[in-house]
């Protein structure tokens, strides 16, 4: 199997989580993967969630809704509103993890798509209303994130277990 493009996750500030990932496809096509529900359904949450709802009203002010179901039957609902749509370059949307407590905190996701040498790089930054929200998302939501500084955790754990063993 050919090597995968690598996912990079960092925390550029204490309120943000950033992800960068390249795809071997033209930008216009990758843009569609993120903006058309029939495509999003094909990959979002793959291996973790069965997509039960995927609705996209791709207009500024238009809403979207993604819901997935975990293997043990828990619903994981996300929703938000499109704020900026510059096809196929830039997408800004709000994101709410739609469960009690969490739904009071909104994230703003800015995604840029850049193409070079037939590859499209997707760079996505989620900015939360506070550090607490971000950490809550990291701790309990379905958002991803490994702080750049936390990359040492693996190192630490390995060293610690060597020590213990």
């Amino acid at each position, binding site marked *: 199997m050919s090597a*995968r493009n690598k996912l990079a996750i960092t925390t550029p500030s204490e309120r943000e989580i950033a992800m960068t990932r390249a795809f071997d496809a033209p930008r216009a096509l990758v843009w569609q993967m993120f903006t058309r529900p029939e495509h999003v359904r*094909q990959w979002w949450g793959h*291996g973790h969630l069965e997509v039960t709802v995927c609705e996209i009203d791709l207009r500024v002010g238009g809403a979207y809704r993604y819901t997935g179901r975990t293997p043990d039957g828990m619903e994981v609902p996300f929703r938000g509103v499109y704020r900026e749509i510059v096809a196929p370059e830039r997408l800004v949307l709000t994101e709410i993890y739609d469960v009690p407590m969490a739904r009071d905190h909104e994230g703003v996701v800015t995604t840029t798509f850049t193409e070079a040498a037939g590859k499209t790089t997707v760079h996505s930054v989620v900015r939360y209303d506070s550090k607490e929200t971000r950490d809550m998302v*990291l701790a309990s939501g379905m958002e991803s994130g*490994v702080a750049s500084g936390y990359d040492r955790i*693996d190192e*630490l754990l390995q060293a610690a277990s060597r*020590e213990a063993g």
Partner: protein
Amino acid sequence: MSRNLDATFAALADPTRRAMLARLAEGEVSVTDLAAPFDMSLAAVSKHLKVLERAGLIIRGREAQWRPCRLDARPLQEVATYLERYRRFWEDSFDRLDDYLKTLQQQDGRQDETHERTKDGDHERSHERTKDRSKHRRSNERRDDRRSNERRSHERKK
């Protein structure tokens, strides 16, 4: 549990404390030795240690005079497990998107060949085919988009 996690995150947010943990991962060490690489007072070091201790990341010996510090990896394990899960969520999603893009582009390539063969033919026929092959609808639409773009640029040239 989530409160513990908050404390762990807060403790890990500081580069000095992470460096201290890295040092402690190598084994038990005294406060003086722990402070040595850092350009800071013992008081400042002991403040960092208190944060780490509150987060349950280190255990400090009470008995010995030099109060050795020792790493407790359990909270780290907890955080790493969480973070690892979220990383995997996106990694798995994007890997799947890779495969899906590959499939779409292969289909698209095949259809472009068909398109080449029929580009002088009438549009009705090609449209009918599009309807028949509904599962390939999207890539056909893309092709149509592209075709109309080509047409537009052709018109501009005229």
